Each structure stands twice: as structure tokens, then as C-alpha cells.
């Protein structure tokens, strides 16, 4: 397939993402993939792409690409101004981009990460079955840089004629409420430490990234000292390093680790975590079974 796009503005961090490479954690390979999987899937559905097609994931400042052949794009996730050659275009709807035109995905008006799907998907070389950029291990395509050319796959044969699921997204709540299932290592913390987790407010730290959502706030009191023998770490693990502030593991998290996991945030709550900018208040609540 011929070249499809040329990067005109890379933004602070724009990566190629899909649904990741699950099934290789035992080899030390993170799952990776889109942080806001709902937005990634919706962008593909809007174009009739399979949900596994690769999209671009932007970070706060968006990105711009020049179409090297006519294409159709859809932008979801963090709401932002969308333009084609400077003319306003729809967010959350298929947008036609003529050959030579520049699609500009602007800075997020709220939220953090926008997803840009293209007709046929971004066609980077897959690694272990996925085109996702894994920033922890450096697997998958490099983050976009100015001038970089991306290939697009073959457009889908059946494009949805009516756009039925482009519900307007309300944007991230002012406060991120994270359900948490305690364990497996909540017994490494005192009852007071667990009360701190479930009753005190935290804030999203600017040091957050695709590996983890770091929090600012009170430290959790430990019931026992020392290091845990390395064990497997699930997506959504609330890991507590020695300084006591929880880190929620996102898609590019390490697969094993030696700090205790006080609880796990269920997968379906992580899309919202991916859209919480630094400073967002965070509260934990016990998850229902």
C-alpha cells in the first residue's frame, strides 16, 4: 500500500496504538495499546474499520498530518478543534481529507488523549501481532516526528452509511473516581493506610505517562517493611513504592515488579484515568464484585 500520511506537526507525544499485544507478559513484554480503548474503538467504528486497526494517540497538544492520498479520518477521545486545510471539521464524525490537505487535530480542550483513525488504519510493521508503540520497552513504531511518513491500510469495503454511535462525549469528570478491588497485597498496609487510600483525596501528578498514573497526596502507612519478591503485575494495579504514594499501572506498565499492589482498578475504569490531566482530583472507592 502506498504512503498515506506525512507528519506536519508531531505534537508533544503522538504514538501509533491499537489494542496491544496481550499474552506476552511472561516474556517481560507489556501489553501496550491505546490507553482510552473506548475512544480508540469508536474512532475505528466510525470509519467501518475493525477495532484492531491502528490509530494515532495524541497527548494534550494534538498533531497534524498531510494526506498523501485521499482518506477519511475520525477524531475521538479528548475533544479538540479539528480542521482540514484550516477549515473547521467535525470531531467524532468521519472527515474527508483530500490528497495534499492537512488534517489538524488541535490541543485538547479537556481530557488528555485524542484518537485519530484513518480509512484502513495506520499500517506500521506489527511486532508480536500489534502495531502499538510501547514506550517502556521501545517496541513498535517510534513516536511521530515531523516529516515522518505513515502508511495506511486498505480502506474497508463496507463503510457505515449512517453514523449511529458518535455520541457526544461529556468529557472527563472534574473528579476521577476509581473503583478498586483490594489485594493481592493489601495486608502489607495498616488499616489506617487502607483508610487513607479509600477516604483521602489525591491528585493526578504531572509525572504520569503511558506507564502509570502517578498520584500526589498522602502516603499509605505500611504494616510491613522490606521488598516483595518480584511478582506479576496486572493492568490497573495500584502499586505502592516505598515513598507511599500509589501509582496506577496503565498499558505500558512493567510486567513484573517488587512493590506491593494494594488493589486493582478494573479495566473499564482505566479509560477515564487515561483522560485525567495533571491536577485532576482522584478518589478511590471499593469496587462492587
Amino acid at each position, binding site marked *: 500500500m502506498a504512503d498515506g500520511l506525512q507528519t506536519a506537526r508531531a505534537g508533544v507525544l503522538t504514538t501509533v496504538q491499537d489494542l496491544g499485544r496481550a499474552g506476552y507478559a511472561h*516474556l517481560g513484554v507489556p501489553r501496550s495499546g491505546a490507553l482510552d480503548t473506548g475512544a480508540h474503538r469508536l474512532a475505528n467504528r466510525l470509519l467501518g474499520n475493525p477495532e484492531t486497526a491502528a490509530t494515532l494517540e495524541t497527548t494534550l497538544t494534538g498533531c497534524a498530518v498531510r494526506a498523501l492520498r485521499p482518506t477519511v479520518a475520525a477524531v475521538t477521545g479528548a475533544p479538540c478543534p479539528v480542521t482540514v486545510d484550516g477549515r473547521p471539521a467535525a470531531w467524532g464524525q468521519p472527515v474527508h481529507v483530500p490528497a495534499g490537505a492537512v488534517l489538524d487535530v488541535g490541543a485538547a480542550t479537556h481530557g488528555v488523549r485524542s484518537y485519530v483513525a484513518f480509512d484502513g488504519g495506520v499500517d506500521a510493521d506489527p*511486532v508480536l501481532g500489534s502495531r502499538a508503540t510501547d514506550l517502556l*520497552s521501545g*517496541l513498535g513504531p517510534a513516536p511521530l516526528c515531523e516529516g515522518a511518513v505513515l502508511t495506511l491500510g486498505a480502506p474497508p469495503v463496507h463503510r457505515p452509511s449512517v453514523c449511529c454511535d458518535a455520541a457526544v462525549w461529556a468529557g472527563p469528570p472534574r473528579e476521577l473516581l476509581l473503583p478498586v478491588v483490594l*489485594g493481592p497485597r493489601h495486608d502489607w498496609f495498616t488499616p489506617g493506610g487502607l483508610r487513607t487510600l479509600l477516604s483521602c483525596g489525591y491528585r493526578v501528578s504531572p509525572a504520569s505517562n503511558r506507564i502509570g498514573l502517578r498520584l500526589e497526596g498522602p502516603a499509605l502507612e505500611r504494616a510491613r517493611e522490606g521488598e516483595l519478591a518480584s511478582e506479576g*503485575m496486572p493492568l490497573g494495579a495500584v502499586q505502592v513504592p516505598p515513598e507511599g504514594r500509589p501509582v496506577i499501572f496503565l498499558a505500558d506498565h512493567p510486567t513484573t515488579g517488587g512493590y506491593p499492589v494494594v488493589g486493582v482498578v478494573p479495566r473499564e475504569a482505566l479509560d477515564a484515568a487515561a483522560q485525567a490531566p495533571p491536577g485532576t482530583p482522584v478518589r478511590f472507592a471499593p469496587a462492587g464484585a
Partner: protein
Amino acid sequence: MREAGGEGDAGRGQLRAAVLPVGRDGLLVELGTAEETEALHAELLRRRARGTLPPVAEIVPGATTVLLDGFPSADAARALAAELPGWDVPPLTGSAESALEIPVRYDGPDLADVAALWGVAEDEVPRIHTAAAFRVAFCGFAPGFGYLTGLDERYHVPRRADPRTRVPAGAVGLAGPYTGVYPRSSPGGWQLIGTAPETVLWDADRTPAALLAPGTRVRFVPLDPDGPGHGERGAGPAPGRRP
């Protein structure tokens, strides 16, 4: 959900493990020793190959745990948690399986420190290290990085007090009970005893991409710094060969 399995009254193979819930659809099985952990991991892989294990996205061994993550439902996870302590897990069989050979030049910057910690002469370090039969206990840190057990307890060493900001690819290091080979250049705090210049631990374009997986048996063979012909190794370089 914490359950202690068959204490004393059951067959030798019966699992003695605590099963801890992980989120809604995962389990962490905690065992007493690294050997029991590897035996359970092998059993899980056998059951998965036979199709008798409920589908689960990830089976991730740790030092003394196995994480089972991503069951199709919370009920599936709960059912296996209830069943696991009754499993009859055969102990690990001997090292009948041939070992992967990793040629090493014992020229690491921490060789003298390790010799001092072991209380041996520097040239004894390669002899002791190449005599041990290693197994990949678990992976992590980076794709292709295996934590290898097999060194006798008296040869366990602490991490360096001052981690290096850059350890080159191929460096062979020791930390705690483990030996590891850095798949690529990265920061690291392990005591470096040598270099494995011929072995490619990770190559995304190769099948399999990772040379080392949990359970892989490994032997290190000495690579003469002055050329081939030293020790039991043949002449030609054969990255990651299996004899």
C-alpha cells in the same frame, strides 16, 4: 479466598499454595519456594496445552508466585481458585531437557568484587558460574530479560549500592539469587561479571522473539578472551544455539 492446600495428609504432589484474588478476573497463586512455583507453572502450561485450563490471557510466573490474569469472568477465576489447592502437581523433573548454552567472556567490571564476596580467587568465578545449571524462573524488566536461578545460596550477592546509569547489551550480572543477561543497553544495579557477545536475547523479527522464557534451562560456557578453543566450547559462534 485465601486457602491453604493439603498440609501433610495428601500425596507429595498436592499443591500447598495461597490463592489471592487480583482485581475481578485474576488470581495470584503464592507458593513456598521457587521450585514449587516452577512446578506449578509447568503444570499450568500442561493443562493449557491439554485444553483443561479455563481460558486466561496471561500466565506470569514471579519469584514465588504465578499470576493468572484475564479470565473471561469473575466466576471462572473463583472456580479455579477453589479448585487449585486440590491439584496434584508433579515435582520438577531432572534436567533431562538439553540446556541452552550462552557463551560468556568473564571480563565484567564487578568480577573482583564478586570474587571477594564469594571469598574466592577471581579466576574461580567463571569456574563456579559455568558449573551451575540455571533455569529461567521468570522474566521482566525488559523484553527478553530472564531471572535465572541455579547458583548455590552461598554465591548470592547484593545489588550494587550505586546502580550504573548505563549497562551495555550482553552484560552478564548477578543480584540476589539471580543471574541475568541484559538484552539491550539500560540502567542497572546488578554486579557485572562478564559479557555474552554472541547471544541475541531479544529479536522481534525472530520466532520466538525471546530466547529465554520461564522454564528455559541455561548453561553458561566460557569464552576465551584470547580466542576460541578454551574450555568445552567449539570454535564457531552460534548465537543462542541449543546443542
